């Protein structure tokens, strides 16, 4: 049966994409050179996987879509759906397809909504506390009084916050370099990229691909922000600033989580990987193009082949 075959292909495609993506994408050596392309690739792959599963669900639930709006075609379509519903296995198929679509969409919407709403609430509260305890500092930043060096930004409130501990260990233009990095996060709306990847990880914790995507996107937005910052500030100055803060703040026996990524990030500033070669550009473009095409193409082709009226 044609429908069963296409649904199987879609589901197998989604699974292989998740497996292949989890295996190959983290190894892409061009990713730190082209962080924004890498982020786009992760997002396209994510969309592709989700869209394929959704398309499979739609194909199961709906025997055909009214491709033409003429009353006759619409009527035929309704008759086909009616016929499917009258068969016991038809009801099962429809039910399973609908359940798949509703579950996947519902999980994503719920997790994304909860994450965004929660983050917004915490940011508003964070901002209220900042207003009372922070002092205006140099370069438009807010300064809070603590020896522990920390630099962060509050997306949505457009605030950049430094502790006195961080101010103390930043010398000369290091402060400007760090602030430029934070401004790049705010301007690029990186929190939304991170929130979206995080919501999918949260929605489907059994799929390792989404967990990897969340980690990688989190690391890549840092690299992207470094790139923007070093357009205006010296890269060695930024590297020195990051090292100064890291050295002053490294707590004894801290968990090494993310440590390697941070070290790679600083190494990349010290020894820049250089312009991507022509071959690497080709590989980057090819990967991005393939993933984007598959992300739209696979589910779309499947829907178009199956969902025309008999």
């Amino acid at each position: 049966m044609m429908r069963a075959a296409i649904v199987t292909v879609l589901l197998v495609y989604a699974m292989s994409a998740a497996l292949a993506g989890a295996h190959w994408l983290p190894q892409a050596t061009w990713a730190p050179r082209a962080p924004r392309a890498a982020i786009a690739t992760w997002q396209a792959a994510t969309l592709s996987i989700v869209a394929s599963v959704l398309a499979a669900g739609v194909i199961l639930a709906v025997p055909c879509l009214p491709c033409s709006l003429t009353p006759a075609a619409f009527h035929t379509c309704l008759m086909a759906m009616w016929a499917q519903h009258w068969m016991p296995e038809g009801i099962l198929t429809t039910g399973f397809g609908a359940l798949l679509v509703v579950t996947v969409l519902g999980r994503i919407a719920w997790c994304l909504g909860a994450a965004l709403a929660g983050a917004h609430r915490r940011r508003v509260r964070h901002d209220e506390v900042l207003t009372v305890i922070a002092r205006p500092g140099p370069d438009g930043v807010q300064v809070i009084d603590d020896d522990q060096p920390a630099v962060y930004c509050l997306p949505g409130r457009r605030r950049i916050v430094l502790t006195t501990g961080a101010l103390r260990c930043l010398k000369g233009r290091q402060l400007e370099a760090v602030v430029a990095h934070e401004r790049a996060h705010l301007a690029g709306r990186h929190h939304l990229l991170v929130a979206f990847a995080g919501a999918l990880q949260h929605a489907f914790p059994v799929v390792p691909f989404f967990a990897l995507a969340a980690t990688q996107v989190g690391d890549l937005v840092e690299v992207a922000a470094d790139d923007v910052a070093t357009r205006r500030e010296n890269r060695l100055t930024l590297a020195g600033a990051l090292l100064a803060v890291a050295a002053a703040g490294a707590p004894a026996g801290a968990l090494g989580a993310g440590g390697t990524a941070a070290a790679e990030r600083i190494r990349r500033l010290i020894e820049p990987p250089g312009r991507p070669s022509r071959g690497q550009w080709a590989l980057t473009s090819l990967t991005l193009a393939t993933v984007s095409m598959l992300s739209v193409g696979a589910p779309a082709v499947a829907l178009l082949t199956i969902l025309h009226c008999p």
Partner: protein
Amino acid sequence: MARFGDLEASIMDVVWAAGAPVRVREVSDQLNQERPLAFNTVQTVMENLFHKGWLTRHKNGRAYWYEAVRTRDDYVGQLLNEALAVAPDPAATLVRLVGGMEPDEIASLRAALDAVQGHEGDEESAR
């Protein structure tokens, strides 16, 4: 007239500095040494701070005595915990600047940086 948030900050500063329950009159006198502020303004803002949970108060005689609910350091600690929390919920703030690097990792990167800076001349490292 200062922004409302600035006034809240100034009032909390006075209350924290006092370290003991204070009346609106004392806070307003203290603030008036820096800028002219109506007693009523200070009173309104302190009532707001009470309703927002920053201050507690109790009545003794005819006046309310105000006190900070938590110390300034408590709030700083809370903000930093939120900002530096890597998991499970990083969305509220961005950048943990460079989290959890090992000391030897830092040392080797420092050496690499010094070497490159030596190469590229003093004008860059001096900036």
